[in-house]
């Protein structure tokens, strides 16, 4: 343990510390990042908060998305349609449309072929309880870059910034100088909750979800 990274999470408390967080990217948007392999979807009014809360006409716990070695399984707790078909449990594929209840519709994306991380967009005009654009179900890596094969596409960038998991928690990789909470790093650095990452092309902030 070095003194300059006192808040670096240990593997034991990683999930407790980073069950989910909001990634604020200046000039681009906000993203809810869920690290757990099991993500619950529902209305935010419940006593036990769900991971991905959507303000819509749905139940407090409406469905669960589980990441398995085969892929993402959607388990319905209440009425769920995938691509218009009623489902109890199904394997999700890229660009599937998930309808929760009668009106709330999400679209499931796995834009990066080499990464199992996925992205959930709301396509029915509803909103997440956090003011974010999309929910990112992070498996190993998150790619923020100029290509369309990125979890977050930023057209102005010339290279991709990658957030990834390592033994001690989360880390970021960027080909060039980067600054985290005012400390200079090169190429890669550990991430902690509340970190402000500044690179030449991108500024992003990790905010814990309470």
């Amino acid at each position, binding site marked *: 343990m070095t003194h300059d990274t006192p808040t670096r999470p240990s593997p034991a408390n990683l999930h407790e510390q980073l069950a989910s967080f909001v990634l*604020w*990217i*200046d*000039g*681009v*948007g*906000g993203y809810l990042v869920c690290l757990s392999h099991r993500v619950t979807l529902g209305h935010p009014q419940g006593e036990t908060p769900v991971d991905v809360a959507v303000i819509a006409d749905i139940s407090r716990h409406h469905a669960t998305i589980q990441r398995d070695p085969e892929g993402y399984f959607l388990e319905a707790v209440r009425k769920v*349609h995938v691509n*218009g078909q009623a489902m109890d449990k199904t394997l999700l594929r890229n660009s599937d*449309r998930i*309808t929760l209840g*009668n*009106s*709330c*519709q999400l679209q499931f994306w796995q834009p990066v072929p080499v990464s199992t991380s996925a992205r959930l967009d709301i*396509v*029915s*005009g*509803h*909103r997440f309880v956090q*003011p974010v*654009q999309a929910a990112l179900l992070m498996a190993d890596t998150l790619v923020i870059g100029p290509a369309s094969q990125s979890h977050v596409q930023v*057209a*102005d960038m010339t290279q991709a910034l990658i957030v990834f998991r390592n033994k001690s928690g989360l880390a970021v990789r960027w080909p060039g100088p980067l600054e985290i909470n005012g400390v200079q790093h090169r190429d890669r650095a550990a991430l902690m909750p*509340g970190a*402000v990452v500044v690179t030449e092309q991108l*500024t992003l*902030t990790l*905010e814990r979800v309470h």
Partner: protein
Amino acid sequence: MKFTYRSGQEPLPGYTIKRGIGLGGFGEVYFAVTAGGKEVALKWIRSNLDIELRGVQQCLNLKHPNLVHLYDVRADAQGHHWLVMEYVAGEPLSAILARHPNGVAPELAAQWLQGLAQAIHCLHEHGIVHRDLKPANIFLENGIIKVGDYGLCKLMADSQHAGMTKDIGTVHYMAPEISTGNYNRQIDIYAVGVLLYEMLTGNVPFEGESAGEILMKHLTAAPDLSRVPKEFVAILEKALTKNPANRYASIMELAKDVAIVMKQPGSIVMSLPVSNKLPPEIPSVIPVTPAMLFQDRLADLTGNLLWAIVASAAFSLLWTLVFGAGDYSKLVPIFFLTLASSWCVLIPTKLWPPIGRSDSWPRRLIHLTLGIGIGLFALWLEGYDLPMPWNAAARMDALQPWQAPFDPPTGMRVFGVLDRPSNTSMPILTCYIAYFGLMFLVLRWWKAAQLYRGTRFSIKAMFAVMFWAFLLLFLLPSLHHREIGFVSLTLAAVVCQITAPWKERTPVRKKKVRLATA
């Protein structure tokens, strides 16, 4: 993008900044959440000028579903002014257009234009000219257009002399009269015209390396409307007119014309597009790919050419049956020449923009070339050998003066008068080239196949062709040739008009004549 404030900071008490949204011409824009949980956009107005704030204050209480609402103007501890606005979750039109480099579907563009027009109409009704309409200031939230950055623009237009402005993105939407210091609502209509053009094609009408170059084009160049869907051509022509007096008098007039050509309902009901039971799988933005446009054109052209074949066959058969007096020998050449002539009119006309008072001479010259080609084709059909470089050995009988047939032809009643060979000194090649070439040069054939022609079938046009075809008949050596030439060109005029698609031109609004009261 580098922002002054970071996520979590609270420069304005009560508003916690979450992230930067963008850097505008007036300052930085942030997404912030109030203590109570309300999401707002904060605009940090760097230039602290009374005149600017006054402009904002005029707009603070405007209410319209298509306008980004302004909540308040506040000053922070440093004396900086912050404009508190509605946060629009959608993306700016600039981002959408960047994703669709060939423009969006005309239906979508028309729908967005209605929202845009409603917002600008509201501003104009309140005596405010936006002055800085551009895709970066227009947002799309759940399918609803939101126009932002109004009220701030007065200063910009006044302080930054046109042509000196640094922001080249703004210059693309500047009406030509801005160079003379004329800033009335007509400039917004011009900008909407530019926006409509950009939505339909993916590009602004005037592009250039420098602001000066673009402004010069706004002042002098005519927009290239050939890439625009044809129903919008007349509208854009009027919206992008250089002279503000000839432009649409109000934005709603433009919106109405768009609604008419797109057959939209007169007014659009504004409501949150909450999806129904199972929302149809329609992406929010339908990209118009070049493939679609190409397919449409292909369908149009192939259908047209197909009908031209059928019509040519039908009319040449009809002619032969009615006037041929049982002589079917001319049926085949008449059919082929009718077909060739009508294709030579239909194909280039398809490639040319449907309207436009462009110079007719380039078109005439192209037609002349095609006409000469038809003359050569006619000769080939008649069995004459053309003097070709590769068969120099062949007898160049097409270059020989035409010699009267050995047996006098069976007289045609219609051309009884003309049943007399006239010029036996001219080579048959010259005869044919002269006849068809001149026929295509003297007449504006494209008028017979244009999309927006007065009526679908004009008898007058047919008679014009007949008149010239008759007048030039002396060029052709014998009755046989004369009949084929005259009949095939007349039939071509009929076939072109019948087969070319036709649309009624949107009626040009008559200027209201105001009677001066004495």
